[in-house]
């Protein structure tokens, strides 16, 4: 094959290699720009990924939903419809296997976990459960958010700010005590 032909094929490969990350960015940016913002109460934990670095795993309070339907299979796709409660946090309004035309609330896509026949609750695997942090801060974030505070002796309210648009959800930040978890960890480590 001639060099020029090789080069043309290479250019196609280059476009594909640039297209994938660009597409990833554009998808997320569109949700951040046009999506609706929601607060999800959560509790962080710190694992790491060999290529992407340290992140905190977010365990959400709304990761179960009471339903009499016991036929859910593991890993089945769920449309999770959400609404805001009186305190401003998100709660699940309804779950479904298909898009519901009569429900005007926002929804995001998730996967089904196991169904507990004991208390009739379906476990939901929420997709936006990774929040990447600077490697030195991820573990501290877990520690400080799980530590009872001296003043109130209760755990701090930690919630995730998530933009939701037509099934897509982008995790924008995690807030502790109304402050971004990155700044909160910095402040706490200076204190101690």
């Amino acid at each position, binding site marked *: 094959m001639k*060099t020029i032909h090789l080069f043309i094929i290479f250019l196609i490969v280059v476009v594909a290699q640039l297209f994938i990350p660009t597409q990833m960015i554009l998808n997320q940016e569109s949700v951040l720009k046009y999506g609706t913002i929601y607060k999800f109460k959560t509790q962080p934990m710190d694992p790491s990924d060999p290529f992407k670095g340290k992140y905190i795993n977010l365990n959400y309070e709304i990761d179960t939903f009471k339903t009499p339907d016991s036929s859910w299979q593991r890993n089945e796709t769920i449309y999770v419809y959400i609404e805001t409660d009186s305190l401003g946090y998100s709660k699940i309004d309804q779950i479904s296997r298909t898009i519901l035309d009569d429900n005007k609330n926002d929804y995001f896509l998730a996967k089904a976990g196991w169904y507990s026949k004991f208390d009739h609750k379906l476990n939901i695997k929420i997709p936006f459960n990774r929040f990447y942090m600077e490697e030195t801060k991820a573990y501290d974030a877990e520690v400080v958010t799980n530590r009872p505070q001296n003043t109130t002796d209760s755990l701090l309210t930690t919630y995730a700010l998530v933009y939701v648009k037509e099934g897509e959800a982008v995790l924008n930040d995690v807030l502790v005590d109304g402050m971004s978890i990155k700044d909160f960890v910095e402040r706490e480590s200076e204190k101690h």
Partner: protein
Amino acid sequence: MNSKIRNDIKELVLEQVISQETASKIETYYESKENDSPNKLFTVFAVLGSILVGLGIILILAHNWDHFSRSIKTFFAFLPLVIAQVVVGYSILKNKSATWKESSGVFLFFAVGSSMALVSQIYNIPGELSSYLLTWVLLCLPLVYLLKSNALAILHIAFSTYYACEYGYFYNSVMGTPWLFVLLIVSILPYYFTLLKIKASSNIVSIFNWLLPLCVIIVLGAFVDDNEFLGFLMYVVLFGVFYNLGMLPYFKNEKLRRNGYLVLGSLGTIFMLILTSFKWFWQDRFNDAVPFNSQEFYISAVLFLSALGILTYGYLKNQHKKVNLFQLVFIIFSILFFLNSIINAFPVIIINLLILVLGVVAIKIGASKLHFGVLNYGLLIISLLIVCRFFDTNMSFVVRGLLFVVVGVGFFFVNYLMLKKQKSIKSFK
């Protein structure tokens, strides 16, 4: 030129085996050959350097710099990728040396991975490691062919295996079958076949001869779904495929260290046979009907037909029309496997006999080829069989002890005989 060759030439001239004129001709030949071939060592170091730099970039970016804004982080996600693409483009356009192509290709490989990882990190994009690895490997596959790069082909195979293990063995929710691994391996085969054709005797071919079967052996277990018992059959038949591949005329005359198929096929076959030579293995499964309508059965069937095809092809191409027992193990085992539900205990006896005969066959092959390694391998098979029977038979300690003494003496005796034979052949020459 190699200093050993230079010394040898000097010695040959001194001993008047070759003339001074021939000596200088030989020297010029080697020197011209050296000029033609690219500096392999330099290529190896350049590739290693690229791997280290690439991995280093991934690690530095994985630190996740909090003080940078989202747009600066995005810029850094693309920077290594674009630099690597420009360097690779330049190497293709200017048709640079293999060193350039190999090292820039490897750098681009890691840049693709790091850019995707960083974008996922910046936007907290969820996703399994396996799907990330799959996208990464697919985006870099064309580079193997465009750059004709061995290092990229090796990375492709290694990362495809990583993907399949992640998807099939470690997937944290429900394990799936990594069918795409088959596609990934098939997609690299044309490159491998070209190497076999053009660079048959090069070291890189030996590396692939080991790497390919090894990866398939590692991953095959991920294709076992619910019927673990059939998994054993899948592995025995797979080792049959490899052994028969290694016995094809193309590979047969290669040295053992270059013929990964034969060595892995033989070792794997013996390992599986020893494992299935215990009574408990078959007893527990006596009442289980073989699930014919399962993916494990279909995979076993495809592997069986491939092994049979390769065996027949090898037999037809073989001038002596000879087949050794190792080549037929997969057929015997398959028959026993399906007979198990009819006659219990029967497979155990046959498998024990089979291992014994295979040991003898290996000793015979070793003796006829004057190969100490193969000879002792045969003795080792028999010893292993005896050690295993030590645990599950009611033989008296005296008989077991005597058996060990006999095998031990056998080791000395057979090796001694062979050494003598080798010496007599040398002195005859």
